[in-house]
């Protein structure tokens, strides 16, 4: 169907093949169930890595096919993916720093907190 009237389409129109879209969806459901199953197995320190790996695989599928990145202009892809670079920079440096002074927070004796009832009010707003 997509192929049949493709010739009528302007050059910027790239409909994705339907079976591919449905296949991608099934793969996504499979991965969701997989991540749920693996989370029930004791995998100790790998659990987080595996969950993130599966999430990234799912994200890649969504990006590539649902979001048509597979057919998109290189510049758009580059720009979008560069955002992850900045996010990791943000997370990485902040983590590096807070990790270094975490101890000085942990040893600090924390004062009593204000009563719970008073807390939800905004201060003098």
């Amino acid at each position, binding site marked *: 169907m997509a192929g049949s009237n493709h010739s009528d389409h302007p*050059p910027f129109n790239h409909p994705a093949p339907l079976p591919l879209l449905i296949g991608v969806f099934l793969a996504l459901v499979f991965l969701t169930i997989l991540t749920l199953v693996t989370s029930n197995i004791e995998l100790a320190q790998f659990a987080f890595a595996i969950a993130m790996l599966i999430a990234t695989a799912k994200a890649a599928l969504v990006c590539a096919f649902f979001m048509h990145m597979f057919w998109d202009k290189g*510049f758009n892809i580059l720009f979008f993916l560069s955002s992850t670079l900045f996010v990791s920079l943000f997370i990485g440096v902040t983590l590096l720093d807070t990790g270094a002074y975490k101890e000085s927070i942990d*040893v600090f004796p924390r004062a009593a907190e204000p009563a719970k009832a008073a807390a939800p009010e905004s201060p003098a707003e």
Partner: protein
Amino acid sequence: MAVADPDNILEHDDHHHDPFIAHHFESAEQQFDSGKLGIWIFLVTEVLFFSGLFVAYTLYRIHHPEIFQQAHHFLDKNLGAMNTIVLLFSSLTMALGVHAAQNGDNKKCGIYTLITMVCAAMFLGVKAVEYSHKWDLGIFVRSTFDYAEHHPEGISPYLIKLSVIPALLLVGFIGASVFSKMTEKDLLAKFFGGMAVTVGGYFLGALVGLGFMALTAGGDAHASHEVAASPLVLQAMSIDEDEKHDEHSHEEGDHDHAGDDHAHDDHSHDGDHGHAAHGAAKEPMHRDVGTFFSIYYCMTGLHAIHIIAGIIALAWVFWRCLALHWRPDYFGPVDYVGLYWHLVDLIWIYLFPLLYLID
């Protein structure tokens, strides 16, 4: 090199004959490319907008793994997985909708858009059930976190409060649809009918969520904190807690500088036993468990706001489907809204394992 001749004098008045190509673009392709780049850049800003919350999440998870361990027992991962699949399905229908629009098939596009909206509303319905259940248990943000072990009966008053606006919208849309039908505005009638169905999706989601919880809880106990309440886990928690406390006081000793009596006093008065009031049998939760829920509410709340914004954008697309606007050379807005919708899905793909699957 262009040469000046009378032909090169641009006559602007005759220029825009096509209502779907803005006057300042040379061609449909230029317009489409601009929109596409624009929406990708917008998605970049969205990613960075969420990044702040991911930073907060990562920091608190790495620095305080114990509070995340304790906290995640309150989240039902099966319900979360179900919601994930609902959202993935909505992404599929969105992609199909874009496909239909690219072929100029407005009717199919409309149907797919409608399904997408219904799924989005369902997602919100399930989320409302999850939220209200937590609020019943006193699970709020950090400062008001006041978890009390009890088994709320019946439908949560919070859920009813949350459902007031959808209920009003439902009634309003049905009324508007019927009124439009009577005044023979068929397009409007269809549009409002579609919106009513969408809002119906919210209630469907809420029902599914409630049913799901009742099923998995297997009777009286609530799944979400049954795990937390099992003796084994509690024991583990208490060990955690004691260890932390010991280590804490030990370090305190090292850093307890002579002359700093006040600091010392503070510590012995206010230990980590903020929740001791809940009974000795139940070892207190870490006082910072509320921080996890602060982050949880910020992340899922912001995501929910994006879903609501998505529904509004989709409603606009739906309206234009009914007005038969899409053509093979003009389907950009469907594509752009679709990309936004996939991003909302993408963020949930990460939120789900980060919040629900902690072990």
